[in-house]
């Protein structure tokens, strides 16, 4: 398949996923409320304004990680409920293009979630957005999201193909995604100035997150087809 053909396939898969999301509104009606409830539960569990403000970036990203499991499982349930993924394979669609399409759809969904969670943390945990930190915050969040989406898409593809093993997904993704959690949280802390950190301390983390994102998204695009094949 030519590269323009591949881009077309990725674009078609992406717009299909986004359209389904718009129709079913799973993100807005189920996932976002779930994530916000998680933020509230953290407040009950940790019980203290200072500690909440101090740990806010970590709490936001833990909520992100768990929510992403739910979102990506849903994204693949859409494919397997009526055998659409099989149909895509039979049609000989380029699987790496399908990967990129689903990856980008997940990135967009997670970015929306991230914005909501940051607003939630601003309101409920009292984090402060500092001018100098905004660039770091935005870039680190985007690269963390790209890396997380890549890992989730790869392993969700694997888990969805095997009957009754969806529960394997968190075990596979969460350890592998731990550099993302560490990096995103530390970068966010530097951006917010939590615990006396300076913005400049956050940039090395952007390096970690970017390498992770590149390795897993390009690796994933190559691995996706063989991984879901019979």
């Amino acid at each position: 398949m030519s590269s323009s053909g591949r881009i077309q396939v990725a674009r078609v898969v992406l717009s299909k996923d986004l359209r389904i999301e718009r129709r079913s509104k799973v993100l807005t009606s189920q996932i976002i409320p779930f994530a916000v409830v998680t933020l509230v539960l953290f407040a009950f569990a940790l019980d203290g304004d200072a500690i909440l403000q101090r740990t806010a970036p970590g709490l936001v990203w833990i909520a992100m990680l768990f929510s992403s499991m739910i979102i990506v499982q849903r994204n693949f349930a859409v494919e397997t409920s009526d055998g659409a993924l099989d149909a895509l394979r039979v049609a000989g669609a380029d699987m790496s293009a399908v990967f990129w399409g689903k990856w980008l759809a997940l990135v967009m969904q997670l970015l929306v979630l991230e914005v909501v969670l940051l607003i939630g943390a601003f309101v409920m945990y009292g984090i402060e957005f500092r001018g100098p930190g905004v660039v770091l915050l935005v870039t680190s969040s985007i690269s963390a999201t790209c890396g997380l989406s890549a890992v989730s898409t790869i392993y969700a593809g694997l888990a969805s193909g095997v009957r009754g093993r969806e529960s394997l997904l968190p075990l596979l993704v969460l350890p592998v995604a731990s550099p993302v959690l560490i990096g995103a949280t530390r970068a966010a802390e530097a951006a917010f100035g939590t615990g006396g950190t300076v913005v400049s301390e956050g940039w090395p983390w952007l390096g970690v997150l970017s390498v992770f994102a590149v390795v897993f998204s390009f690796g994933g695009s190559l691995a996706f087809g063989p991984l879901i094949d019979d």
Partner: protein
Amino acid sequence: MTIDTPPITAATQRRGTSTPATRVIGILTISMTIWLGVFGLVLSPADRDQGDAVRIMYVHVPSVWLAYLAFIVTALASGVHLFGRRHSLQADRVAGASAEIGVVFMAVTLVTGMLWGRITWGVYWQWDARLTTTALLFISYVGYLAVRGLEGTREQRARRSAIVGLFAVLEVPLVHWSVKLWRSLHQEATVLGTDLDVSLDGLMLFSLFVGVVAFTLLFVWLLLHRSRMLTMLDLSAESGLESALAQRRAEGGASA
């Protein structure tokens, strides 16, 4: 296309997985382990600060190095399976056996690390770079073993596992990098001397070397036995296939 028939070698023809080679390695392993005991427990000096507790290091450190070696072997074997023309199932069996051994070594590392911390500092766990990384990688490879256990034909399982194995090894430097960077932020004294901050004099270094040699021999011995066992399991499944085919056709004949 035929099913990849496992090689009928001297090892798999017999009832057990031992061969002259493994017996030699086994004897060497035992003798090196005895030497390790002698050097580690008796001949090498106690540490100035930690006393005799430092001797746990002679098991803890070689164990973690061998775990990494095992995972590298898994990655190489996974690569051979995926990219080799024959997509050799033997490579896949080696990858699986090596990962199992690696996970065991990682568990030993964690347990000895916890003991060491308990004895020296009174705490079972420290969020230092080595223990944290070890714990994360331990869980990752447990996940790899879980993927190996998923249903499917042997070729399917092998391909899936090989891909996950390669991702798992790609992840090792990333985890190291992020955890190291993380701990460096806190500038705490690395307790447990797990970054080998324990000042090692010549004899201690030599004992460590003995430990590494002993563990490497142990790894090779375990790997040979375990991959052969996996080969024999596959062989028996293969002969099981013949009877399954006959049985399957018979059920057709009966109802035709």
